[in-house]
Every structure is written in C-alpha cells, then in structure tokens.
C-alpha cells in the first residue's frame, strides 16, 4: 500500500499541496483517477509521491516503510513508476531500444560493460511482450521522435510498465491525444494494468473516461482533498461538478 500522510508543499506563497492524506492499493490493482481543476495540485502530488519533489511536511509510506527521503531512482526500484504529462522518452532511440533500455535497467543489467545490449534473451523476450501488449510492433524500429503523438504516449506508458511496477502514476496519459486515440490509449493502460495487478493512479481531465474506468476517484481542489469516492461521485457531488466543469447552480 502506498500512503501519503499529511503531505504539504508550497512554492513561495502558493500552497500546492495542502495536508493531503490518501492511500492507494489497499485493494491490489485498483484504478484510481485524480481529478480537479487546473492548479489543484494534481501534478505536484504525483511529483511528491515519486520523489521528483520533496515535501515540506508529511511523509510517504510504502508497505509500512517511510520512503519520504528516498531518491527518485530508489523509488523506481521499490516499485513506483511514473509517466510525465509531456512525453519523456529517449528521442534518438527506436521504440525497441527505448523499451530495451528500460528492461535492462529494471533487471539491473546496465552495469554490464561487455555484454551485448541486444544479447540478453530474457530482456528481448520482455521487450517483444511489451511491444505486443501496447500494439507497437509495427513501430518497433521507428525512432521515437518520429512517432505520431498517440504512439509516443503509448511508448511512454509502455516504458513505465516495462519497469514492472506495483504502483504506476500516470500524469495525463491522454493529453494531446485525439479523441479517437484517447479510448485506445486508456483501454490499453487499463487492460495491461488489470492483467498485471498494477495499482494505477491516473490524472485525467476527460470525465467520460473517469466514469467509465475508475474504481475510485480522488478529487483535489486548491491543493487539498475535496473528496474521495466511487465514480458516481462525479454525478452526485454538485460542488465538485461546479469545480470541474464550471457549471454553477444558478445556470
């Protein structure tokens, strides 16, 4: 279980994370969606959990161990992977090389100076498996920077899954993806996540997607937790609707 306890983070005057206490993965493999208006502190929260930022106060607990002071790469080894809102992949590598690099790293083989990078059979098998799961076989030998946007997003997510995480934090995996591709990207994530029992925490703006796929929804507002509940919360909580959609009662 991954827990945030009383997390606080401010940037100068701005309180980006205001006393957040949440837990994820009580039920293994749950799909949690984080929603909230712009500036609600969604990305900051993920940055705190993954070690991109360190909190001013509070702690992060992974399976009972305090990991608040752990380095970002240490947390990846401990099973927490993430993706970024803006695709961050290794642009000059092909899709296959990107995934190979991830799997080699995950298996702790990157200190090997004299073996062949493409000569580890178990790694190659895992790379093929990822290519297939994320339907990237046709693009396997395309250099990342030449991929269409949807495939870049998929590659980004595939790389996170390649780390064999227990917890996966995705920062808007569907942002900038066309409506048609959106479903495809999110479906792939849900499918693979469910199959491998990965607890997935996803920031998402598209409420249709949230309603359709979420096991649980966390709503943030002005750095604090506005509410936690089932996706039906989006329908029933009027104040939340107003916050997210700008729909007021008087309209």
């Amino acid at each position, binding site marked *: 279980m991954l827990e945030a306890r009383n997390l606080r983070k401010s940037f100068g005057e701005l309180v980006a994370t205001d006393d957040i206490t949440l837990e994820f993965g009580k039920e293994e493999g749950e799909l949690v969606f984080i929603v909230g208006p712009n500036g609600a502190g969604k990305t900051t929260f993920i940055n705190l959990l993954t070690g991109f930022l360190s909190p001013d106060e509070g702690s992060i607990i992974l399976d009972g161990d305090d990991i608040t002071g752990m380095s970002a790469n240490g947390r990846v080894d401990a099973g927490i992977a993430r993706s970024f809102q803006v695709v961050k992949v*290794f642009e000059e590598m092909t899709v296959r090389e990107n995934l190979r690099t991830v799997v080699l*790293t995950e298996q702790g083989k990157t200190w090997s100076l004299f073996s*062949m990078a493409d000569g580890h059979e178990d790694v190659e098998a895992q790379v093929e498996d990822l290519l297939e799961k994320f339907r990237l076989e046709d693009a396997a030998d395309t250099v990342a920077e030449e991929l269409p946007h949807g495939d870049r997003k998929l590659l980004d997510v595939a790389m996170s899954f390649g780390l064999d995480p227990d917890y996966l934090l995705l920062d808007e995996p569907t942002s900038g993806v066309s409506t048609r591709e959106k479903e495809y990207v999110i479906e792939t994530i849900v499918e693979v996540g469910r199959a491998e029992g990965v607890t997935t925490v996803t920031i998402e703006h598209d409420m249709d997607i949230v309603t359709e796929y979420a096991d649980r929804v966390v709503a943030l507002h002005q750095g604090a937790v506005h509410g936690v509940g089932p996706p039906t919360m989006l329908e029933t909580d009027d104040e939340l609707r107003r916050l997210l959609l700008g729909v007021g009662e008087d309209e």
Partner: protein
Amino acid sequence: MPERVDRDGTPAYRFLGVEMTRREAAFLGLGVVFLFVIPDIAGLSDSLQLSVIHQGLLFGFAAVGLNLLLRHTKLTSFGHAAFFGTGAYATAVLARYAGVQSVGLLLLGAIAAATVMAAIIGALSLRHTGLYFALLTLAFGQLLYAIALGQSALGGSDGLPIRPGPANQPLLFGTAFSPDVYQVLTYYLTVVVILIGLFVMYRITQSPFRNALDAIGQERTRARFIGLPVRRYVWAAFVISGIYGGVAGGLYAVVRQYVRPEGTLFFLRSGDILFMAILGGFRTLVGPLIGGVVLIFLQDVGQDVTQYYEFLTGVVLLILVYGFPRGIVGSLRSGGIVNTRLGELRREPSVLSTWGRTAVQSIERKVTAALTSLRIILFGVD
C-alpha cells in the same frame, strides 16, 4: 572463430562481439596495416614525420575517451587535458623520483594516477550539467596546469625529463634500444594500445551500459525515473574517459621523454582534444582518432607555413561546422554528396552530360548575374 550472421540481408561476421560485413572488415584490415607501415611511409617524405603522426594518434586516443561522454551522455568536457597531463606527469614523476624504468610500469602508474584524478574531478564537477559542467572541468584543468607550473618538484614551466636509469631511457622488454629503434618500437606499442583501446570502447558502446548513458544524455529526467542513479553512471563514464586520457598521456611522456605543462596540461590542449573528436566525427568510434592525426598534422604544417597557424585551425573549424557537421568519418560514412554522385555515375554514366549541362547553365546564370551587378554598379540602376 568468426560466426556468420545476417545483417539486413548482407552477410556479416561476428567475432569477439565485433560484428562487421566483409567490406567493413576489409577497411579495418587496411587501416591496421596502414597504422603499422606508417614508420616506413613517414621516411619517404619530409613533411610527414613519424613523431607528428604519433602525437596525433596519442591526442586522438584521448579524444576517443572524451567521446564516450560527448557522444552518449552529451556532456562537453573542456578539461580533458587534465587526464592527459596527469598521465604524462605521473610517468615523469615515477621515472624521476621512484626510478621506475620499465615502460609497462610507467604506463600502469599513468593509468592509476589518471583514474584517481578522474574520480575526484568527476565527483566534483558532475554535480552540474551543461555550461557549468564545462566550466568546472576547465577550471580543474587549469588548476592542475597552475600546480605543474608552480611546483619546482614538477619542473615548473621547464617540465620534467623522463630519462630513468643508466640508459637515460625507459626500458622496453627490459632492454634499452638506440633512439631510432626506440621511437619506432614505442610507436608500435601505441598502435597496439590504440587497437586494444578501440576494441574495448567498441564493446562498451554495444553494451547495456551504453544504453544507460544514452538514456541519460537524451532525457535525463526520464533516466532517473526508469531507476538509473544518473550521477553514478555519468561518473563511471567520466572515469573511463579519463583513463583513456591517462594512457595517452603516459605514452606521450614515454615517447617524448619530456613533459611540459604547456604541451600536456594547458587548456588549449583540452580544446584540441574536444576539437579532434568533433573534427573526426563524434558520432563514430574512430573519428576522434583520425581527427587527432589531422589536427596535429595541420598544426605542424601550419607552423612551418605561417606564424598565424592558429588561424588555420579556426578556418578548419568554420569549414567543418558549416560544411561537414558530422566530421570527417561521419561524412564519409553517411556517404555525403561525393558518394551519392559516385553511385549515380556508376549506375548511369550518361549522367555526366547532365551534370555538364547543369554546370554550364549555372555558370551562365552566375555570369549574367555578375554582369548585371557590374552594370548596376558602373552605370547605376537601368
């Protein structure tokens, strides 16, 4: 024995992890033979001196090491002469104060010293990236230069000789040779060391370690978030590249039998090493080596021709950046315009007449334009 593999349809061979087609193997063989016969060729011409080529190879070898950082982690070190100089001075100090005579031991000393130096400078400068990293390496390099200049034990600006033992010369295979033979033998030693060094570097650039370095170079943040302890990897790469510099410096000291701060530690030498990698093609393995020979050769010839020989380097750099950004080897390999044209010619010789026509047409156009300009200048706008 070489094992036959298939690379995109062309048969290739794999031996000791090195994979190449017949064509590449032939080039490699030619290159090796060429390196070994250089002492014989060099005797034929006055402008082609063995010592110049030798020096070029040594600095080029340091550039091969630097290239590990430049090509994969995308870090630009402006202080690689520090390791070259450390290797050279370690050799001199061992020969002078410890009485070490064997070339092998001297080189081991150079490697050890450069490794320690690279470990320290790396740990201190790799906290930063980009410009600050470059400036820090430059600063540490100049610091070592200042130390070498200031310490009388290191000979100050006069430097130190490497003339240990009764023969006044380091011993190869426990034997003292006549100076001429010594020069040629140390050259062969350099060639062997370079071949081994290139092989090792080739294997490193095929290994998972290289994937980690590439990842760090291309997207540092993501590299961290796939679980790479970024600084540790970059530090390891920095030390490896420093070792190449140390080996080169040690050999340089053994060959020249004299080290001066100006020739080994001065920041312009760092600039040279960086320039060599870019000149030869930093996206290739052997490019920096060739860049080294070419640059040292140009500087040497330039020195004979004009006292403004530094100017020559500048001109070469400009031509390079604007005309051949991939460097010598990079341009040759990617084919470039020359190869494409040659290919066309081989397929269809009549293309020659087309080229002729195009050339005449373009000359006509240029002349007409020039005449128009001339008329305008002379008679004003018509």
